[in-house]
């Protein structure tokens, strides 16, 4: 499993590189090479590193370890076909990681990034409604059961299309330079990452790579089902390209607009969930 873990990290970083490249091409820039994010991670890991004088050292370092740890756990849950709820609990707890990154350094930019991250916790709620909608169909939260259900009934992408859209939006809100990525918007320098440089940033990059792979593969497992590994890779690349279009063509929303849009999506998803529940679809 260690090999898979490392591969997943590298592949996730590659996906993020593709993301940057596609955005650049859409905006008619040359853009960095697709392996730029991997080089980035390596580059940061060679840099000299210390803890800022004003930081709360334990939290400053500990949160990096927690960031990698929770996504490693999420990777194993997806890998072994565990409970979807655990994956999404970890997804929500990533908020805390962002919050910890931002606040632990004492930097005002990091602090604003962290506070914005807390405000935009509304973005995670559609996720739970979409998970609930899926569970109404499959009557189970374990990924292996969901995969089995799709082998019998066909992909959930067609059966529960609104749930797929909601989860797509949730993934979109975690992509860099997307419409909802207010936590890293440039008026805050790099938002919550501002003060984590050198090795700490390399750790954060590892976490981001792993996170991307886990989220994308969860999306494909939940809405398309178990496919051969090659098709899985193709699916993830297609997913990242579509996300890049969404990111490249939309402006970044202001924090309150971002929360409003996410709240509206949550409301719509709640209506859909109630409709499924009351209508007795399953």
């Amino acid at each position, binding site marked *: 499993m260690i090999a898979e873990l490392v591969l997943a990290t590298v592949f996730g970083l590659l996906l993020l590189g593709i993301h940057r490249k596609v955005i650049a091409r859409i905006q008619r820039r040359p853009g960095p090479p697709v392996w730029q994010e991997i080089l980035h991670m390596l580059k940061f890991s060679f840099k000299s590193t210390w803890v800022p004088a004003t930081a709360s050292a334990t939290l*400053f370092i500990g949160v990096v370890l927690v960031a990698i740890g929770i996504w490693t756990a999420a990777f194993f849950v997806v890998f072994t076909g565990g409970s979807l709820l655990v994956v999404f609990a970890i997804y929500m707890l990533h908020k805390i990681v962002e919050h910890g990154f931002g606040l*632990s350094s*004492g930097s*005002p930019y990091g602090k604003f990034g962290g506070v914005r991250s*807390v405000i935009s916790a509304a973005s995670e709620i559609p996720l739970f409604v979409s998970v609930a909608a899926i569970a109404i169909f499959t009557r189970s939260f374990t990924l292996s059961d969901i995969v089995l259900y799709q082998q019998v009934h066909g992909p959930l992408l067609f059966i529960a299309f609104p749930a797929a859209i909601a989860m797509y939006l949730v993934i979109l809100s975690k992509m860099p330079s997307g419409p909802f990525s207010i936590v890293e918007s440039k008026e805050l320098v790099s938002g919550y990452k501002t003060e984590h440089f050198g090795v700490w940033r390399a750790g954060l990059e590892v976490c981001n790579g792993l996170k991307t792979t886990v989220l994308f593969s969860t999306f494909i497992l939940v809405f398309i089902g178990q496919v051969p590994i090659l098709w899985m890779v193709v699916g993830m690349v297609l997913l990242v390209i579509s996300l890049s279009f969404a990111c490249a063509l939309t402006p970044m929303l202001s924090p309150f607009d971002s929360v409003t849009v996410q*709240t509206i999506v949550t409301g719509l998803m709640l209506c859909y969930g109630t409709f499924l529940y009351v209508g007795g679809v399953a």
Partner: protein
Amino acid sequence: MSNLAGIPYYVLEFGDELVYFTPYTITLFLLALTFTIFVLVSRPERQVDIAFGGDAYTTKEITISEMRFRRFMAIACGLASMGAMVTGDIFNFTLFTAMVGITNVGIVAAVKSPHVQNAAFQYGLVALTATVPLFGGAAVYAAATGSLSMIELAKGTLPAVPFVAKAFLVLGVIGEGMAPFYAAKAEMFRAPGAPYVIMCSLSSLLIFLRVIEVVMLG
């Protein structure tokens, strides 16, 4: 939907008090534990204030007595959220949730900034009103099913839990915790002392995650 988000690994029966771990709750529990340990061993950061555009900056210092009080509150908050993660009893869950509400106020109460004080007071008002649906929900659970034990509810042999009870429970948890639903809680996070302040958001997120599991039972 009677599965407890995975099979319970371990059930500890202590009289009629139940403690159980599933893959889901153990993940949440370990995270609460990790951050409580961080609170225990870390010192607060010195928050830097700058005038944007200028080059003057100051760092905020936290006095030892203030730090002690806030650390105590943060640890209490961590313990309460750990309790809420593992408890197998609906009423205990609501009590732990209410306790998280109190400690969240306590964590920022010692901060001398009027802005934070005001946010904490407004948060406290909402958290206190949220105890009505919270306890009410637990009471309706007991009235309708005759049991407050999550293990019993999960077996599916009891009468169905009315929708209003679940709605009350979720409403109460949202009132106690979720930052996006009211700005006062997000404002509280401006307070310096990151390791402690982070417990506010961690505990409310964890409790929200747990209530999702709770309402799926029965």
